[in-house]
């Protein structure tokens, strides 16, 4: 039907027609209709858990919609998988880094489609083309370098270079700038503009609103799995975008900030090193305080705190309530009343293939045993209490942890760690992948902990979240604590300055590529 070249311009290259996706009984995406035109940058914005990534996976063949159809050039298509989608010119640049760490840049870029000369791979040609591809992204990386020796940002660029090796008409970027510095972001936005000018359709997912405003032609807002609006970018200011994304007054998301922090130091850390990740870190945590750790991905926040609680090798002075302590294993820090909730809920927090009861009591089994015997009755009582106290919503009690939604998994993990009756709670990315309703509950829970005289450390990549709930924020960059912001100074701009090490003029940055 799209043979006629005059008509082709008006036909969307990629289109979603009322698509929906359910995982089990939970519908995570409902009736999304979307048209992406050639030569357009179409941004998809929404909170974590709004369904952005699911939508992208549906459009790129990684998942099949439960309802509705995907169309290319006006024709319904059903991708057998991502490879099939790539053959049709549709590529997805993943948010996570999916590269083989032991192979070189060139080997990764050409993985699965190696250039050959006779029977042998043509390394020289692949290296040459890889160098070109990387250079066109504004980076200078030796194509024979092993991926494992590159920074996260550079790996991201290699991944983009790999995606663009395929002949492409639609490119989907899933949060491509999450781990990039402003300069790297700028280079990437320029690449995207070049692609657009060549007539490629771009789907751009992000929740960094100024960036979206700078790059997008049209913007679609998702919230709770539903399409809220599709607008011309020129009509929307970042403030309007935020309002559409959240769907309510932002200030209500966070509990009233109370001055619960006392002057009593409960945790003092002096010159703490975690080899390869954190250097010379010193900070204090007060009773009743909520302390934030901000920084870019890879700045060493997670590793520093894992080092302090004994999950990694680390050296330095740690004082708990004024007494020097040394935690050799995480068991020691738990016994001392410190718990750490991993950012990687599915990989390090919960046993996804086990039921709720097993997960709940795993860290505190000794409290549920008489002699060598586990008392299942008491475990069940404890689960009842956890389900009520933490508002864990499970259809059935015998569900596996992996069958819960992200929000309920986080509540279960909280319940599990709170059984240790800690006085210091460290939560890494507390609301990652969680719907907005649960977010509010978790913020309130954190505030209540502080009110009850406990101390909380929150590590987060969501600056708004840190600003919303913390009394004080420390910023890390390249393994070091580089700044502290409190009170009025707790703004996104101020944090970004410390996190990236550069004071940037935003207007300058985003106009650079428009020339």
């Amino acid at each position, binding site marked *: 039907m799209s043979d006629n070249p005059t008509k082709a311009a008006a036909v969307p290259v990629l289109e979603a027609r009322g698509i929906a996706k359910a995982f089990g009984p939970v519908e995570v995406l409902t009736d999304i209709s979307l048209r992406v035109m050639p030569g357009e940058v179409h941004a998809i914005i929404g909170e974590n858990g709004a369904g952005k990534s699911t939508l992208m996976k549906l459009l790129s063949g990684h998942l099949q919609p439960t309802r509705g159809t995907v169309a290319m050039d006006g024709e319904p298509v059903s991708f057998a998988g991502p490879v099939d989608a790539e053959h049709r010119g549709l590529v997805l640049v993943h948010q996570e880094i999916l590269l083989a760490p032991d192979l070189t840049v060139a080997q990764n870029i050409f993985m699965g489609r190696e250039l050959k000369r006779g029977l042998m791979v043509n390394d020289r040609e692949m290296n040459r083309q890889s160098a070109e591809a990387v250079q066109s992204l504004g980076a200078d990386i030796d194509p024979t370098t092993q991926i494992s020796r590159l920074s996260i940002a550079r790996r991201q660029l290699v991944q983009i270079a790999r995606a663009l090796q395929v002949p492409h008409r639609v490119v989907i970027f899933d949060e491509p700038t999450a781990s990039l510095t402003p300069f790297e972001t700028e280079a990437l936005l320029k690449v995207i503009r070049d692609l657009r000018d060549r007539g490629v359709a771009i789907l751009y997912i992000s929740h960094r609103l100024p960036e979206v405003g700078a790059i997008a032609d049209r913007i679609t807002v998702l919230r709770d799995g539903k399409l809220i609006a599709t607008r011309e970018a020129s009509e929307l200011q970042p403030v309007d975008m935020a309002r559409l994304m959240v769907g309510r007054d932002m200030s209500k998301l966070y509990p009233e900030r109370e001055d619960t922090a006392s002057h009593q130091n409960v945790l003092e850390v002096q010159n703490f090193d975690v080899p390869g990740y954190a250097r010379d870190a010193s900070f204090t945590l007060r009773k009743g305080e909520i302390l934030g750790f901000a920084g870019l991905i890879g700045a060493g926040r997670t590793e520093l705190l894992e080092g302090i609680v004994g*999950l990694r090798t680390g050296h330095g002075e740690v004082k708990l309530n004024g007494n020097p302590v040394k935690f050799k294993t995480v068991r020691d820090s738990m016994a001392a009343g410190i718990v*750490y909730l991993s950012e990687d809920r599915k*990989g390090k927090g919960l*046993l*996804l293939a086990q039921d709720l009861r*097993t997960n709940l009591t*795993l860290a505190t089994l000794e409290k549920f*045993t008489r002699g060598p*015997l586990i008392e299942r009755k008491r475990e069940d009582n404890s689960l009842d209490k956890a389900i009520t106290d933490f508002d864990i919503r499970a259809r059935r009690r015998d569900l596996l942890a992996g069958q819960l939604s992200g929000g309920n998994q986080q509540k279960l993990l909280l319940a599990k760690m709170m059984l240790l009756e800690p006085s210091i709670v460290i939560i890494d990315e507390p609301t990652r992948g969680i719907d907005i309703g649960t977010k509010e509950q978790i913020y309130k829970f954190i505030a209540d902990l502080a009110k009850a005289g406990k101390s909380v450390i929150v590590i987060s990549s969501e600056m708004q979240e840190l600003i919303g709930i913390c009394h004080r924020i420390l910023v890390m960059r390249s393994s070091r604590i580089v700044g502290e912001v409190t009170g009025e100074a707790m703004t996104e701009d101020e944090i970004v300055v410390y996190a990236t090490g550069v004071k940037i003029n935003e207007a300058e940055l985003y106009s650079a590529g428009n020339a």
Partner: protein
Amino acid sequence: MTDTKTITDTRGFGRKLADLDKTAVAPFLALAALFVLGALVNPNFLSIDNLLNVLTRSSFIAIIAIGATFVISAGGLDLSVGSMAALVAGIMILFLNSGAIDGDMAMLATGIVVAIGVGALAGLLNGAVITIGKIEPFIVTLGTMAIFRSVTVWLADGGSIAMKSIAMRNMFRPVYTGVFLGLPIPVWVIIAAGLLGAFILYKTSFGRHVIAVGSNEDVAKYSGIHVNRVRAMTYIIQGICVAIAVVVYVPRLGAATTTTGMLWELQAITAVVIGGTALRGGVGRIWGTICGAFMLEIVGNIMVLSNIVSEYLIGAVQGTIIIIAMLVQRTLQKKK
């Protein structure tokens, strides 16, 4: 399933049926199918004598496989159990021949303690190298498999190690041939080991930790579980189980040879896997394992009784069974 019609609340029953973990039930259904097959092939198969004989002969593998259930459900693997059995048997008999203690009874009792001690130490060696050295269990136990076998051959000077004292042999023999309350002693040993194994794995916090470590080592670590200690302990339990199997095995022939325990690792792992334990860890089924050990022995028994397939091909049949069992497990899990 036509029986469900006679039950009034068919929906409730159907639901319960659907809730049943198919991987847990499958081995018992397979065992029942083997009984039918056996009866069809040879009417003698279902005789009490034949069945008790089969049970008795399956005891070595069943007991060793109970230990293997711990190792495998914690995400490990032990290829050294066959060689370990030969080594433990060799050292036990050498001790019995040494005459270190007065009185045959005291000697035998101490010999059993020595066997269990050697088994536990051999298991500790496997566990320590795997956890402290951070080496793949496959490689470590492949190495110790060769080491244990070779040391046994050396101790036996290339031949066999036999019990010298006829009196002691006669005293020891009932452990294999004896009958108590109508059941052969080795069957009682299986039952006792099974009960103890099931108690430890299902009812104690250690058992819960084994499953947690096999399910996801990182989650276990972040929950404050001493992962290395738990993993090493499963290898020690494996070693003790091997030693118990040896205590039942030695009175049968009164000797250990260079081929004692050959391919037992294959049979033990097969029994565990066809019993429904996941090879990737996180699921352990003691009774399924014992059922799996019976099945292996019954297959051999049917082959002997039937003449359809040469009994020399028993290894090939057992090898085929483990592959098919994995395929079935995979399919059942996908459907879940």
